[in-house]
């Protein structure tokens, strides 16, 4: 059990700055998800936490112990790799035992702990099979058993669910969270899937270009994204963006572009006119109206996705950008039909297009 602290961590591969000036604190027993597109440095960060990669500079602290120069084993971490990598030539049992090979435990202790771990994740009946004979989900569970049998200071999971089908992923997601909470062990989980991140993480660290874009609870990240990148990366259906400028109309700061103008929420009351901003609205907050009016956007229906309890309307804005709106399940519209949408200004976010940062209220 440990609190993990990354201090000014850097990793450079040749010319490429894979991780830059990363400061991160992971509380004891916390499940932190590192989220980001491929190449953002999340796996590199995890490999440095694990001790698989030496950082170029900076330090890593577990609890009160500086572990920067320690080997993975000394750090007592357990790791589950992409596609739940296992030793292909060993049985499930032997794979799990390998985690305890250097523990110095007696044979009977080892076998007891293997059985316990296997039972915990419900693979006790598979112990004598080879990895090649297991299904993807079973392999993932064996890999998990292999991780927990160590009773490690922390779990590191590197996209373990990426290769599995959606239904199985959902099951395993909750199993992992449940397990982590039961064991109360710190866990770092790397993924590029924002749904996985939202559903699992105590906190989510969104990474981009080797740096931490934003860190916070799933709610924080979802409701108060601090950058356009986070706003766009998190949430389903994805965020709507409108590019335009801020002008003062009737003494009120107003968002203006070629086809729409929105009065900004009161919170932006003091905002001076400026050019190059992006307005963001979650599809859930879009309302479809039939008549054009103040604060509406003209749309042309492109497609409707039925989700059962609700539907997602996808439409083209006049500038060609796609706009999504969550609508009631019974909503009907023809492709090509003209519609209008509006939203409550208090649900909109405002970002500087150039810096991509949130515009201060």
């Amino acid at each position, binding site marked *: 059990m440990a609190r993990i602290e990354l201090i000014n961590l850097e990793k450079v591969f040749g010319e490429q700055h894979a991780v830059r000036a990363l400061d991160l604190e992971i509380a004891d027993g916390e499940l932190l998800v590192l989220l980001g597109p491929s190449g953002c440095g999340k796996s590199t960060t995890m*490999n440095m936490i*694990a*001790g*698989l990669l030496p950082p170029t500079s900076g330090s890593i602290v577990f609890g009160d112990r500086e572990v920067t120069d320690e*080997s*993975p*084993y*000394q750090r007592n*971490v*357990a*790791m589950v*790799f992409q596609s739940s*990598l*296992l*030793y*292909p*030539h060993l049985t499930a049992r032997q794979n799990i035992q*390998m*985690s305890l*090979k*250097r523990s110095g435990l007696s044979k009977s202790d080892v076998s007891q702990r293997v059985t316990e771990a296997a039972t915990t994740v419900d693979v006790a009946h598979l112990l004598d099979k080879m990895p090649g004979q297991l299904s993807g989900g079973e392999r993932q569970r064996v890999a998990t058993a292999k991780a927990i049998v160590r009773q490690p200071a922390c779990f590191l999971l590197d996209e373990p669910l990426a290769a599995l089908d959606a239904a199985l992923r959902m099951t395993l997601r909750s199993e992992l969270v449940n397990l982590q909470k039961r064991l109360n062990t710190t866990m770092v989980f790397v993924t590029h899937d924002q749904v996985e991140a939202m559903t699992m993480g105590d906190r989510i660290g969104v990474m981009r270009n080797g740096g931490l874009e934003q860190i916070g609870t799933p709610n924080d990240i979802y409701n108060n994204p601090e950058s356009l990148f986070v706003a766009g990366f998190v949430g389903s259906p994805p965020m709507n963006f409108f590019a335009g400028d801020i002008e003062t109309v009737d003494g009120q700061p107003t968002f203006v572009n070629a086809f729409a103008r929105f009065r900004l929420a009161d919170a932006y009351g003091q905002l001076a006119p400026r050019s190059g901003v992006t307005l963001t609205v979650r599809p859930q907050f879009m309302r479809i109206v039939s008549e054009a009016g103040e604060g509406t956007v003209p749309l042309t229906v492109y497609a409707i996705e039925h989700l059962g309890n609700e539907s997602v309307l996808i439409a083209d804005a006049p500038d060609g950008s796609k706009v999504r709106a969550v609508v009631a399940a019974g909503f009907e519209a023809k492709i090509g039909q003209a519609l209008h949408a509006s939203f409550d200004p208090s649900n909109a976010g405002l970002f500087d297009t150039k810096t991509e940062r949130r515009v201060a209220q």
Partner: protein
Amino acid sequence: MREKRWTIWMTLSVIVALLWTLVPMYWTLKYAFETHSEIAAFPPLIFPPNPQVAAFFNIFGHDYTLASGQVVKGSGQAQQIMLGLRNSLIVAIVVTIITTLVVVPLSYVYARLEFRFKTALLMAVLLSVSLPPVSTLIPFYSLYVQLDLVGTLTGLIIITLTITIPIVTWMLIGFFRNLPPIENLARIDGFSKAYTFIRIIVPMAWSGILVAAVIAFLFSWNEYVYAQVLVTGSRAVTLPAAMSGFLFQVPNPEHLAASLTISLLPPFFIAFFLQRHIVEMNLSDPVR
């Protein structure tokens, strides 16, 4: 209907493939079961009229009495054939073992680890793959004369290693590159590089290593150019060199065929039983 036509085509192509594979061997190896007169017959006979095994006795120095009462004399080359068989086995086994011991870690390092000078070192290996034996024949000979290695098994083993090591390294690098990234898992489990390599990588790569060993064995078992120059006429003569005694001057096609048959048995045996491992070899680029 379509399925049936396919089956017929398939059967036909299997037959053609078998003929293609076996006829060239059959055509000469059948000489081992014929008398010299039968071999010399013109037009050539397609099947041995009176198959017998005299030649197999002869090449080991024993006379053999045919059913007709004719006595076929043992060959004077027998001693060299037996010596050659023994020496070839020694050389091939030693070379296989050394090559495997050396090449497996070497190609693993090239395939999986990143380090400086890697490309330069790899190029050096490739250069030695490209060296034609004929070019180095005389230089080697002169080197060996100075080192007193002419006519010794040691000398032949050393020279054969210079052939097997580069080419087997080259083949194995691709194989190792395709293994899953298991080293990280092993590091999490706390294993050293050496332990990981010996206890995890090697067992995982068993097929590839087996194929590498087979290739090394075949190369050394089949080596002829150097043997012809370095060990012919010595106690260290190998089977190909001893066998070539039947090749040039005095016609002994039946003895040639019999000793060729015997020389083919070990590699056939190996190829026959290990071929399924070759299927597990999947190439990737060693210089990538």
